[in-house]
């Protein structure tokens, strides 16, 4: 079944047993909405200098958006900002590939569980679900670190 390419075992696992869910203390908080389906996320980041101390979140949404937030938490917490940025950009690239991109070894190393989302990129309506938490993280990071990426990040999600 074609659907299995989207609902990978890994994704369903993250959906059922999310990592790091719940709101904890943070340097900045954002609330993002996907008006297409009503998915919502509230996300906080805490930085120690350039190191990501925590990404905590709460929200409601479909398996894809929930699993994606869980993967994000697993992947980014503990990373340096620059590396997190590379991961986020690579994930964005994968999601916008419309199923045309075959993850190579380098990508798999970088994205770990997140490569499981490759199949989602074939479903345009679901790409935004997968990106919701990532865009929220980008926005929250911009706010926490006082840069001005906030606007551009917000637009892309909506």
């Amino acid at each position, binding site marked *: 079944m074609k*659907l299995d390419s989207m609902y990978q075992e890994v994704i369903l696992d993250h959906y059922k047993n999310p990592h790091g869910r719940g709101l904890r203390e943070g340097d900045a908080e954002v609330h993002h909405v996907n008006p297409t389906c009503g998915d919502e996320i509230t996300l906080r980041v805490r930085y120690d200098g350039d190191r990501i101390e925590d990404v905590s979140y709460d929200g409601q949404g479909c398996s894809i958006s929930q699993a994606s937030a869980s993967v994000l938490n697993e992947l980014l917490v503990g990373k340096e900002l620059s590396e997190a940025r590379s991961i986020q950009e690579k994930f964005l690239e994968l999601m916008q590939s419309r199923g045309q991109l075959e993850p190579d070894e380098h990508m798999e190393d970088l994205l770990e569980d997140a490569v499981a989302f490759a199949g989602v990129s074939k479903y345009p309506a679901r790409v935004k679900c997968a990106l919701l938490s990532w865009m929220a993280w980008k926005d929250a990071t911009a706010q926490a670190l006082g840069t001005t990426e906030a606007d551009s990040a917000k637009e892309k999600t909506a």
Partner: protein
Amino acid sequence: MTQLPGLLDTEAIRKDFPVLDRRVHDGQRLVYLDNAATSQKPTQVLDALADYYEKHNANVHRGVHVLAEEATALYEGARDKVAAFVNAPSRDEVIFTKNASESLNLVANMLGWADEPYRVERDTEIVITEMEHHSNIVPWQLLSQRTGAKLKWFGLTDEGRLDLAGVEELITEQTKVVALTLVSNIMGTFNPVEDIVRRAQEVGALVVVDASQAAPHMVLDVQALQADFVAFTGHKMCGPTGIGVLWGRQELLNDLPPFLGGGEMIETVTMHSSTYAPAPHKFEAGTPPVAQAVGLGAAVDYLSAIGMDRIHQHEQALTEYAVRRLREIPDLRIIGPATAEDRGATISFTLGDIHPHDVGQVLDEQGIAVRVGHHCARPVCLRYGIPATTRASFYLYSTPAEVDALADGLEHVRNFFA
């Protein structure tokens, strides 16, 4: 095959709708249950569009040449058809817009710019309901923000019906306008508008009825409704996209100011000032959606030939069957009236804690097209404490077999996420 009394001859009807032959996802037969979002179009409507463009296309009014006369006759003929379809006292009360949303915004704007006694302004009130489509909420929010008028609303009962208990307190001497839907687009609820109309008339408030989910499915009689304005949209009733209707009482249309300005809606223009044509033209600025009106006329002919009462009957039978089948499914919770009584063929539900987005996706893989999300009625989701719903909605070409496909599909969804 399941036989239910009151069903239409869907085998014949389905032949009129080319898209229903579509196969999706490597050969799955399309089961189109997203009719509350938009309906499919019969060949009769598509032929009317093609015929218009291939033989008669011209800009309407103000032309002396053959094509212009033909196009005008077709466009104005469509107005006659729509007027008859809703039993309007006069064809001049039928305004063509681009969709129901524009129709509703048109009323809100007219009332904001109107003179007394219609003017909505500070210290006046607007009343809507909690089950409105966003298109019948946001225009009134904008109007209230821009004028200082107060926005109030009817709440909902746990059964998915309007809570009319406080009607006397809600609709008061301050109320200038009451806007409500005849049929909920998310729950399928039929609303008893008579009580509300009566109370509105008592206090001299205007009543705006959103009939977007009624016009496609049942007899709509604007005179019987006794409302002041009635809005609906072509694409949900077998017509093309890009066409909506606003019916309004003639005296009101004469008294109220225009909304969009431009060609076609004027009587005479100088650089210093302009005067306006009588309704309906006063409210139709610019080149109208000519082909789309012609297409809507053909849709109205198509529906009328079958009979709106028979379509209603068909959907009633189907709804009864669907409600029965759906209630057999474990963990399925219908949002809105839980029986087939006083409701239309639009059924929203949740399925355990499987997110509607996931439900819709897995149904789609089986060729079953439903809608998931807020259905442009987010306050209803908030009211019932749910993130979203899955919505199946039927129409004159829907069959019991499609209900079965839905029920089976939902079992598959449950297994998939078990």
